[in-house]
């Protein structure tokens, strides 16, 4: 089952992650389609314009982008057998991912206090479900990264297991590109 | 080679007339046989009584003959191939290994495309005709509101509100505005034409010009809960005179006898029903202003007779399962009073 035995010369797990990502495109596509279809159709406020905090979210976006950088550097470190680098960059991914989540928790709490809840209006429902499911994906990613970090600390993450990191990385980057889209269509294009 | 095949076939035909091919033929032609067994079908959708229904039937006619033609040709080809190329017992010969024939395949890619072109043209034309403006510049406006499980009909320009029995004059376009008070329903009178959904929270439109007086069966076509099957209606296409008469009668609010109104009010009926000219102004159930003049009760389920009315009042749920009208536990005396009162509302 190693790369040489497969038809396309791609490890099956890597291909599986790409196939899964294609499926996830449809998942987030449907959520985004609903958000956009219901845009401006709320009967009561708060509206996006009143409530969305662009400076905060810009920082969050930047944090998530930088976590992707840390991710590729972690992969590079694992591939070259650089254990210190692997730990450092995996740790960075965990910290940055955690920061993003913290930002989201803060944002959700703020919105809640300003009267935007799941039940308040269509904007609330579509916004929280879309960004909430994205947050859930980030959470799964962070747990995955912590697992890899622990493996690395235990010395179980040598170059022979770099595919583990690569596949996890694909997931992480995908979660990042989804956020690129959400940041644009939800936050910036109001 | 060719000759030998011909011999084989001739042999096969004369020797067996194989029961297999015969039954196969019979089975695959069963649908056609089924069609033929039905002499001059008079099914409702094929007997339209409005311009709308005729437009729809025209396209259906086109499509039917195209598809029937394709059906016969393809099934015959299939059966022919099966009979002609059946292997005889003991035949171990391997036939020519033909992998394909590109020109032929391109041909039968283009052929359906060409047929579709002929189907698409009347289709698109009719879509825009049906969803365009009504042909009559002064159509009769009617608002249809779906409820679980009955129909509300409002004639804003005539000031009429009624339920389950829709009256329209022959020859004048009726323009319906469709919406729902609860879940999705669908307006369908098969002899008038196609259906259109009644969506809660938005409005749909549908117009038709009835061409033949009569009474036509209609029914909700979108699953709407327990008694979906019982959400029926009657469409009365009246000649102009009787329509005028009907609408005048509907507008004339006869002062109802006060004792009956009292029974109606104290029994709890007024919480849901309106009777014009009385304090009963409930909005949940059908408007009963001239319920006595309707031919049916309970969304066209039962004939409007005193006995049936009494049965309905006694236990709505056993007449129409799931009916939202509660069983008020009325005693027989009160039921009799109510029946007399309601049947008198004309």
């Amino acid at each position, binding site marked *: 089952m190693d790369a040489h035995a497969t038809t396309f010369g791609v490890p099956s797990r890597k291909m599986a992650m790409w196939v899964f990502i*294609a499926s996830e495109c449809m998942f987030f596509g449907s959520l985004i389609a609903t958000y956009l279809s219901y845009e401006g159709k709320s009967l009561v406020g708060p509206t996006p314009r009143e409530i969305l905090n662009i400076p905060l979210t810009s920082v969050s976006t930047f944090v998530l982008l930088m976590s992707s950088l840390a991710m590729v550097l972690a992969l590079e470190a694992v591939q070259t057998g650089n254990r210190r680098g692997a730990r450092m960059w995996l740790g960075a991914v965990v910290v940055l991912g955690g920061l993003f989540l913290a930002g989201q928790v803060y944002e959700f709490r703020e919105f809640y206090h300003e009267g935007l809840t799941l039940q308040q209006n269509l904007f609330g429902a579509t916004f929280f479900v879309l960004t909430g499911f994205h947050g859930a994906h980030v959470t799964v990613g962070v747990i995955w990264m912590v697992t890899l970090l622990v493996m690395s600390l235990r010395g179980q993450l040598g170059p022979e297991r770099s595919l583990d990191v690569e596949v996890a990385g694909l997931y992480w980057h995908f979660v990042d590109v989804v956020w690129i889209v959400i940041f644009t269509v939800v936050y910036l294009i109001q | 080679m060719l000759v030998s095949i011909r011999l084989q076939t001739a042999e096969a035909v004369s020797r067996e007339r194989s029961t297999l091919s015969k039954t196969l033929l019979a089975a695959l032609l069963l649908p056609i046989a089924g069609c033929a067994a039905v002499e001059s079908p008079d099914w409702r959708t094929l007997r339209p009584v409005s311009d709308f229904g005729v437009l729809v039937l025209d396209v259906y006619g086109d499509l039917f003959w195209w598809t029937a033609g394709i059906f016969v040709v393809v099934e015959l080809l299939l059966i022919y191939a099966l009979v002609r190329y059946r292997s005889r017992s003991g035949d171990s010969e391997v036939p020519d290994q033909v992998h394909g024939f590109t020109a032929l395949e391109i041909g039968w890619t283009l052929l359906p495309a060409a047929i579709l072109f002929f189907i698409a043209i009347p289709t698109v034309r009719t879509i825009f005709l049906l969803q365009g403006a009504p042909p009559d510049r002064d159509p009769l406006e009617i608002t249809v509101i779906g409820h679980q499980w009955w129909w509300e009909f409002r004639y804003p320009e005539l000031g009429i509100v009624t339920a389950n029995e829709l009256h329209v004059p022959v020859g004048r376009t009726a323009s319906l505005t469709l919406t729902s008070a609860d879940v999705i329903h669908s307006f369908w009178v098969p002899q008038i034409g196609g259906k259109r959904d009644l969506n809660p929270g938005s409005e749909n439109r549908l117009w038709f010009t009835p061409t033949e007086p009569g009474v036509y069966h209609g029914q909700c076509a979108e699953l709407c809960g327990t008694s979906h099957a019982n959400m029926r209606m009657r469409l009365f296409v009246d000649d102009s005179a009787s329509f005028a008469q009907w609408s005048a009668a509907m507008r004339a609010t006869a002062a109802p006898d006060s004792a009956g109104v009292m029974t109606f009010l104290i029994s709890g009926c007024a919480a849901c029903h309106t009777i014009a000219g009385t304090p009963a102004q409930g909005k949940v159930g059908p408007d009963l202003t001239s319920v006595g003049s309707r031919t049916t009760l309970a969304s066209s389920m039962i004939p409007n007779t005193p006995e049936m009315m009494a049965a309905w009042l006694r236990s709505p749920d056993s007449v129409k399962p799931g009916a939202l009208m509660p069983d008020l536990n009325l005693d027989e005396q009160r039921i009799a009073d109510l029946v007399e009162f309601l049947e008198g509302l004309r």
Partner: protein
Amino acid sequence: MSAHATAAHPPLYAGGLRSWLTTVDHKRIGVLYGVSALFYFVVGGVEALIIRLQLASPTADVVGADTFNQLFTMHGTTMVFLVLMPLSAALFNYMIPLMIGARDVAFPRLNAFSFWTFFFGSVLLNLSFFVGDPPDAGWFGYANLTSKQYNPGMGIDFWLLSVQIMGIASIASAVNFTVTILNMRAPGMSLMRVPLFVWMALVVQVLMLLAFPPITVAFIFLMFDRFFGTHFYIPSAGGTPILWQHLFWIFGHPEVYILILPSFGVVSEVLPTFARKPLFGAPFMIFSGILIGFLGFGVWSHHMFTTGLGAVADTAFSLATMLIAIPTGVKIFNWIATLWGGHIRFRTPLYFAVGMVGLFIIGGLSGIMHASPPVDIQQHDSYFVVAHLHYVFFGGTVFGLFAGIYYWWPKVTGRMIGEGLGKLHFWLMVVGMNLTFFPMHFLGLDGMPRRIYTYATDLGWERWNMIATVGAFLIAVSVLVFFVNAARSLASKTQAPADPWDAATLEWTVSSPPPEYNFAVVPTVNSARPFWLHKYGPTRDISTRTKAQGTPAQPDNPPTRIDLPSPSSWPILAALGLALLGGGALVGLWMVLFGAAVLVFCVYRWAFQPLERTGHPTFGPAPSGGSS
């Protein structure tokens, strides 16, 4: 190749219950799918029979209104998610690795997880019967009839949770099989040499990958509406139930192709085998299959022509729908051309394959009618549509899948299945099916809506309804004949040969049933019909040549050992955790959290358990083939 057909190997299906619960073998998982699907076929069939009894006469009182609504909801949901999809999955699981020359799927344990997730989901759905509150809003579950306000019971919750769980199973399995087909092919098997059945399976996997997420999202919204009080489908708060219709049919139309394409694939294997010719225009068949799948995503609103989307949208979706008729027509013509000039042997699989072609045409042609909105608005939600969809799903899918069952039965069971009873099954089913469903066209044209539990006496619908009911019981008899035939076959002692039909594809090169490791030597493929080439040599001028007696095509260059994945308990336990997580929503938060904990724990144990463990029997070099 065939030299190993008689080699001794451990019996495939030996071992106790535990070995079935922990198996990761694609063949056993295929059998599990098949047995579950046939069981639910009976369940869904009984539901249908009760429906037909209720409708046999006007104002009948076999079941009440609510029970009737529950029955057709469960019938539809069962037949789509618990019968046709898993029956296709059974054939995919068993045959795909054999047909592409692989020893297993890409992710054997994920495969077990998919099955058990499906299985627990199906159990959860049917548990609703036992709490006395099955779903009743139709298999399409149109909002806002499913809202808490209009449907306060638990039935809808059972339905939405179980279908979501089964959706996860479908996506997991689709990832697995997409990768398997793309990446696990035997050396030399280029994409154009992949058998048509596997090609159609690939299209189906991609459709599942892309179609299940939208329905998952639709269900998430419904779940939030019902559990957390959001208003995605609630008109009073600005939402619209039409959103559900869009998301549902974005899934629902590709789902139609998910259900029919496997059957197209089976027929494309069976017709060439019994006509003793290659499939006519295989590349056209492949591309038309891909095109059908692709176009399937652009036509969802043709289920919504009465919704009121406007003339422009209706036109666009109408024309897109008509386009699908073109690749579908190509398939039918190519099948007929495959028979043309062949030496057709009339065995049971051929009967069902031909039946599928002949009956599917009817469903396809009424489908063209529905592509035209003016016609569709008359036929929509009437019995005409019920007739149409049953010609597609029963005439098309069920006949196609039965062709597959009869075709591969000897391979899977190692026993031949009776031809006489098989043909009886076919004839009863053809007659029964036409008797049941053809009159429904007439009923629809006469204005009978679907999903009604009763109708008035004066409407004139009783004659055709009675005939349809008689037909339904005839179908039941035919299914009974199948089960008798199957039981007799399994009880018989005669071993089926490796290649009973003189077929062309790789699965027939190994014994019946195949050894656990499938291929002692992974074959090298140099043709779209590798086994045929091996038996008959190059196909040019073949007509005078008689069958050469089997000589192995492969040089005997065996590997030293074959490592097979070890059985594992974690997939089934993880699936159980997932089901507890989902079904737990009906019980309480503690159950959800418990399920989640089980799931996470099992996933970790699974991830860190080596796929192949020491101590598990590995297989020595062929041709001895015994376990070491």
